[in-house]
């Protein structure tokens, strides 16, 4: 009772809940699910970009891209560590990913078909991720909030790098311009879907939102974040000279926001349920790496045990 009141008080006063604090079981499981999904997204999200490391068009770009993919691995680590403060461990969470019991962001089920996709992912996908993540820097759970602060700093760096890739292409040859435009055409709508289903209407799926808001895990609704993202991104597209693939996109003076067209929620649900271009491939690649590495992890553990035994002796 007293503990529950303490937890409620923390959340109400916008203080951080720490691992040692008592917390409702539902809060804990919600956080674990969300943080795991977030960590998985970082790890699976390495794949579409890693696809271009060997083919990057210049050594500078190769280095930047390699560093970026490596940062994503780092983000995955922070987030698994943060989740571990809630008493699960990484290998358990990875198993759930591999078995399809926990999800990752559906955006990574789209293929990277050209070099411009490395730019579009930085600009649009990281841009959307930041929009989702900045509020999490004030999340009620301390370790998650602190992890997000680190992640967001690096993500905004990545977002600028992605923008710069497209900026260079958009000022390049006709083929390069077309490549940049094509990437924006393919990634725009999936990026908007990253904010999740709409808050209301037929396609809504208001599962956890209200409770997450009450707990201080979620701060803004999906549609609010989506609108913020669009408002931020449209001027950037104009600056790039890229046309966003939505004929209904226009400034609404009255609302003070950009109006936009209908999102294809059928596609969203289809990809989420497994029928996306790369769902199978992403998990297969991940599972293969994990299984191929099993003997290495076992060896490391065996060696550590031997070393510990020697130190005792």
């Amino acid at each position: 009772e007293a503990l529950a009141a303490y937890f409620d008080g923390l959340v109400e006063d916008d203080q951080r809940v720490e691992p040692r604090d008592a917390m409702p079981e539902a809060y804990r499981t919600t956080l674990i699910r969300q943080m795991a999904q977030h960590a998985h997204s970082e790890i699976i999200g390495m794949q579409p970009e890693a696809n271009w490391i060997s083919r990057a068009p210049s050594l500078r770009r190769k280095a930047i891209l390699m560093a970026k993919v490596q940062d994503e691995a780092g983000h995955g680590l922070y987030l698994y560590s943060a989740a571990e403060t809630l008493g699960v461990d990484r290998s358990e969470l990875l198993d759930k990913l591999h078995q399809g019991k926990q999800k990752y962001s559906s955006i990574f089920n789209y293929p990277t078909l050209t070099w411009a996709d490395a730019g579009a992912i930085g600009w649009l996908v990281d841009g959307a991720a930041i929009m989702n993540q900045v509020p999490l820097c004030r999340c009620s759970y301390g370790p998650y909030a602190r992890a997000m602060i680190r992640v967001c700093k690096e993500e905004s760096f990545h977002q600028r790098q992605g923008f710069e890739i497209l900026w260079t292409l958009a000022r390049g040859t006709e083929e390069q311009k077309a490549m940049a435009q094509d990437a924006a055409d393919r990634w725009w709508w999936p990026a908007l879907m990253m904010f999740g289903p709409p808050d209301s209407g037929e396609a809504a799926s208001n599962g956890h939102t209200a409770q997450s808001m009450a707990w201080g895990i979620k701060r803004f609704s999906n549609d609010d974040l989506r609108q913020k993202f669009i408002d931020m991104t449209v001027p950037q597209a104009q600056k790039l000279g890229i046309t966003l693939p939505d004929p209904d996109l226009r400034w609404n003076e009255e609302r003070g926001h950009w109006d936009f067209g209908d999102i294809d929620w059928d596609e969203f649900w289809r990809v989420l349920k497994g029928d996306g271009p790369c769902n199978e491939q992403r998990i297969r690649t991940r599972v293969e790496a994990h299984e191929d590495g099993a003997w290495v992890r076992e060896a490391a553990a065996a060696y550590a045990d031997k070393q510990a035994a020697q130190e005792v002796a």
Partner: protein
Amino acid sequence: MSDQHHVDYLLGLGDDALIYAQRLGGWLTHAPQIEEDMALGNVGLDLIGQARALLTRAGEVEAADPVRDEDDLAMLRDEREFRNVQLVEQPRGDFAHEMARLLWFSSYQCELYAALLTSGDETLAAIAAKAVKEVEYHRDHATQWVLRLGDGTPESHERMQQGLVAVHPFVAELGEDHDAARWASEQGIGVLPSTLTEAVNASVGQVLERATLTMPDPPRWYARGGREGIHSEVMGYLLAEMQHLARSHPGATW
């Protein structure tokens, strides 16, 4: 002719770093644990950095008109113009195989860059001064893994030993002298590879002993000719992948 030897010497160093970075990049998303995705990514990044500096320097010394920059040299040379040893171009094997390769290659690079600290090519000396710390970290990383795998489980011991065997035919080439190195060493610009061999072998040998592993028997065959642009058949595929985009858009800026 002396200048061409200088260029070739730098290209040999730069191509080793570039091509190995290209192979290591393949580990990202395929490593046995996430920490290792990061670690091998780091090694790859260091090597790309070295490659960029070395190729840039090679272009400067070459002084073609117009000067070829790092990307001209990386993306627009043909296979026969690449001067890396065959060790670094071999496809990714299992993790033990990679650690065997990394141990040999980083041990070689440690001795190499230490010797180049006093190069009469001041730019090269400066590159070596930065790189020598990086490659010490690489060697340490490989050493830690060779110990863990060699003295881990029976399976890992066996795989580690096999990895050493697989890599062995490619090791001698690291210590093979060639015209460009002979010239560079005479000029006080470079180092004769054969002078590094003893220290490299000793350094690797110590690790293997601690790791309960044995130095493989002399192999039935030896890789040769990388410094003269003779590569294994896998190299063409590596270059096709690496260069395709750049070659598809001649003159473009990225």
